């Protein structure tokens, strides 16, 4: 990953062991109460780093001495002064120690209050203020934006400080969800595609294993973090091993899963998944990040779960420790490239029957075949993730621009000819309107209720989490007519400067004349998470290693297919019972096929790729187009 010229801040912290070994002293210095052998004090260490102090006695106290604070501002000012004094006291107390502690324990320069409120006593005492609470987030000035010349800040995720002070002025609650910040240093940000001035959103993560607070880019989905400097190392997710429970029921969110770490407790035994014999083949290991299909565990107490997976050209069946199984593909290791290559090879095996079906699709298959020969380095995968997150950014505030960008990315890799002079994209309109937009203005909402909802052709096609297409008359013409009328109408509304209104102004009867299908996208489709497996009856788990498209683009690929005869015309599907369907895959299909594999083995479905699609929660034809887009973006083609 290349470094840019932009400098960011990485902060080193004291280790959690500093908190652990000095817990009593820190509590005493901050609250004036010695927690040792004090039954009214509860002190605990926090999993993410830091500690929590609660004075039960003071919280239950009925002594109301009147409020020590006049109002919220007064409370925050006094707390700020108080924390300043405590910083001095803690620095003094630890100044003679081996590790010099000359930095503020409470990093006031980064602490931003996000809430301050009084807590009231029970009603029987009247409405009296019992205590005040202040909650702070941590906001770090991350870098100077060369475009805006502003200093851009980013929050530290899942970290903060919460202080509760009794009306008598005593600290009765302190949640220090942080590690003491020790020193800061400048490091170059990793370069974001070609344009280093365009920087995706940053967030800071506290990693108590590396004693650092370092920046990460937020990917298309908020659950995904991409290291933004060479010292940004993802913290290991916290697992609670004490409450082990291995669910045996079907769970649509835990069928396609990923190996998040390789266990050392049990040796991995692998056998050919298609084999009906119980004999196990040679022991192999698969790297973290590998996609696996979670089958039914033998019992809820069993620590291991049988899984099917594709590795090096064939399916295998192994048992994995449940603690090593993750529910998302954001797993980056030195084997990230190998994992991607494996998923690509798997798809190639699934789409072999689609070869030579359509000239334009052949180019898609060729790009996948070429890509399958490459093993990306970890840095190349990171670059690819940033490129995908940046170039396929979903801006809900500007749906027309987002759709234009997604359309361009999609039709660049697959755009069938519909005549000697025209392509599929020329006759397709993906509508960037939404119910939310109509709702944004009273007049627009009135029009929606009086015109759209009362029209047989228009209706409300924005409900749900997927999309819908219209390609038949008279509905198609009715929608075009309304769009042209809406173009004039919107000028009379407060939404006249919205991106949607500006898009409407680009329409004309001539431009709509060639349109043979109009695709609607539901409002909730814009809100789908990257880890949702279904958009209504559309399976959208089209991931390849750590790579995946924004969910809405997977929905668009589907809608173009089912609303045409030229976009993936060869794609169809089977029902779990063996009947025929189109390319829809509801979770019930996955459930039925999953049950069949559990009862009759993977070999019972392996020969029908439609069933494999059910299990992998991904229609292979859509996955191939998704992969072609990913290749185009990640490889900057």
């Amino acid at each position: 990953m290349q470094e840019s010229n932009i400098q960011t801040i990485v902060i080193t912290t004291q280790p959690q062991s500093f908190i652990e070994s000095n817990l009593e002293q820190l509590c005493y210095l901050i609250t004036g109460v010695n927690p040792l052998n004090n039954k009214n004090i509860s002190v605990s260490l926090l999993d993410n780093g830091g500690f929590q102090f609660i004075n039960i006695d003071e919280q239950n106290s009925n002594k109301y001495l009147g409020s020590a604070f006049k109002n919220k501002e007064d409370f925050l000012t006094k707390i700020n002064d108080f924390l300043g004094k405590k910083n001095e006291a803690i620095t003094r107390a630890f100044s003679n120690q081996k590790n010099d502690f000359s930095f503020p324990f409470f990093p006031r320069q980064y602490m931003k209050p996000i809430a301050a409120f009084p807590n009231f006593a029970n009603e029987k005492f009247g409405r009296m203020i019992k205590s005040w609470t202040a909650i702070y987030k941590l906001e770090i000035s991350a870098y100077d934006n060369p475009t805006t010349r502003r200093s851009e800040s980013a929050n530290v995720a899942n970290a903060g400080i919460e202080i509760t002070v009794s009306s008598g002025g005593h600290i009765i609650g302190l949640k220090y969800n942080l590690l003491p910040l020790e020193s800061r240093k400048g490091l170059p940000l990793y370069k974001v595609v070609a344009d280093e001035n365009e920087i995706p959103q940053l967030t800071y993560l506290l990693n108590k294993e590396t004693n650092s607070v370092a920046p990460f880019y937020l990917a298309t989905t908020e659950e995904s973090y991409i290291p933004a400097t060479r010292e940004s190392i993802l913290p290991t997710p916290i697992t609670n091993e004490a409450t082990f429970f291995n669910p045996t029921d079907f769970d649509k969110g835990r069928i396609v899963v990923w190996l998040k770490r390789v266990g050392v407790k049990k040796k991995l035994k692998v056998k050919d998944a298609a084999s009906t014999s119980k004999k196990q083949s040679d022991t192999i290991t698969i790297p973290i990040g590998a996609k696996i299909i979670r089958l039914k565990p033998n019992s809820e107490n069993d620590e291991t779960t049988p899984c099917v997976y594709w590795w090096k050209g064939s399916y295998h069946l192994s048992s994995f420790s449940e603690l090593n199984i993750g529910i998302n593909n954001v797993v980056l290791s030195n084997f990230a490239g190998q994992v991607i290559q494996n998923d690509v090879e798997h798809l190639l095996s699934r789409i072999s029957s689609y070869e030579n079906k359509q000239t334009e699709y052949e180019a898609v298959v060729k790009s996948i075949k070429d890509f399958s020969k490459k093993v990306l380095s970890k840095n190349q995968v990171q670059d690819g993730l940033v490129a995908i997150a940046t170039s396929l950014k979903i801006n809900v505030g500007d749906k027309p621009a987002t759709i234009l960008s997604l359309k361009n990315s999609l039709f660049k890799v697959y755009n069938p000819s519909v005549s000697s002079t025209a392509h599929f994209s020329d006759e397709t309109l993906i509508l960037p309107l939404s119910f939310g937009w109509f709702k944004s203005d009273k007049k627009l909402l009135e029009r929606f209720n009086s015109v759209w909802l009362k029209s047989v052709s228009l209706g409300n096609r924005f409900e749900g989490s997927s999309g819908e297409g219209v390609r038949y008359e008279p509905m198609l013409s009715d929608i075009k007519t309304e769009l042209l009328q809406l173009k004039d109408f919107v000028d009379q509304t407060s939404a006249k400067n919205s991106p949607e209104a500006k898009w409407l102004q680009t329409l004309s009867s001539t431009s709509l004349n060639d349109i043979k299908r109009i695709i609607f996208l539901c409002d909730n489709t814009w809100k789908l998470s990257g880890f949702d497996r279904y958009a209504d009856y559309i399976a959208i788990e089209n991931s390849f290693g750590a790579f995946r498209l924004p969910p809405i683009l997977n929905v668009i690929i589907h809608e173009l297919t089912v609303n045409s005869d030229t976009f993936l015309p060869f794609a169809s599907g089977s029902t779990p019972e063996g009947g025929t369907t189109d390319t829809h895959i509801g979770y019930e299909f996955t459930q039925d096929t999953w049950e069949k594999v559990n009862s009759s083995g993977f070999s019972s479905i392996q020969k029908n790729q439609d069933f494999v699609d059910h299990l992998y929660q991904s229609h292979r034809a859509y996955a191939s187009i998704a992969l072609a887009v990913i290749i185009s973006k990640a490889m900057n083609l």
Partner: protein
Amino acid sequence: MKTHSIIAIAYILISCSVFRNERSISTYHSPSQNGKDTVQLLDTLVLDFFNKNYVTNYFSVKTESNELIFKQTIFNSTLDTLELQAKASAGWVAPKFSRTVLPKSCSVIIYSYLVTNHKGYVNTTITLEYKNLSNIEVNNNYIPIILRGWIE
């Protein structure tokens, strides 16, 4: 002989139903499992290379289940075996059908509606494509099946 008689009687009954202008819908509730299975029975659709579309009357269905099922009989009135392909225009509708229909025979197609978040007025299209298996030179035929109504 007995089979032929049954087919003949079925054809007469189906023909009577089809050649009315109305596209009627009747509802029944099958024994429910997991809150599913409110089934709407649609008029029979005849595949004869002449029918160009099928639009239902407005239906009104009250359901508390997650899924609404429309069931339709398809009658192949030709003397050829037909191959079917159906595509639902909406992401929340899925068709289920048999790929082939023998000459002068019936087949059943099911349209499953995911009702969650889709209550109110609906107007969706399923494109039914069919072709003559014995004569591949004849162009495919398309019938848009438009289902419209109100789901409470």
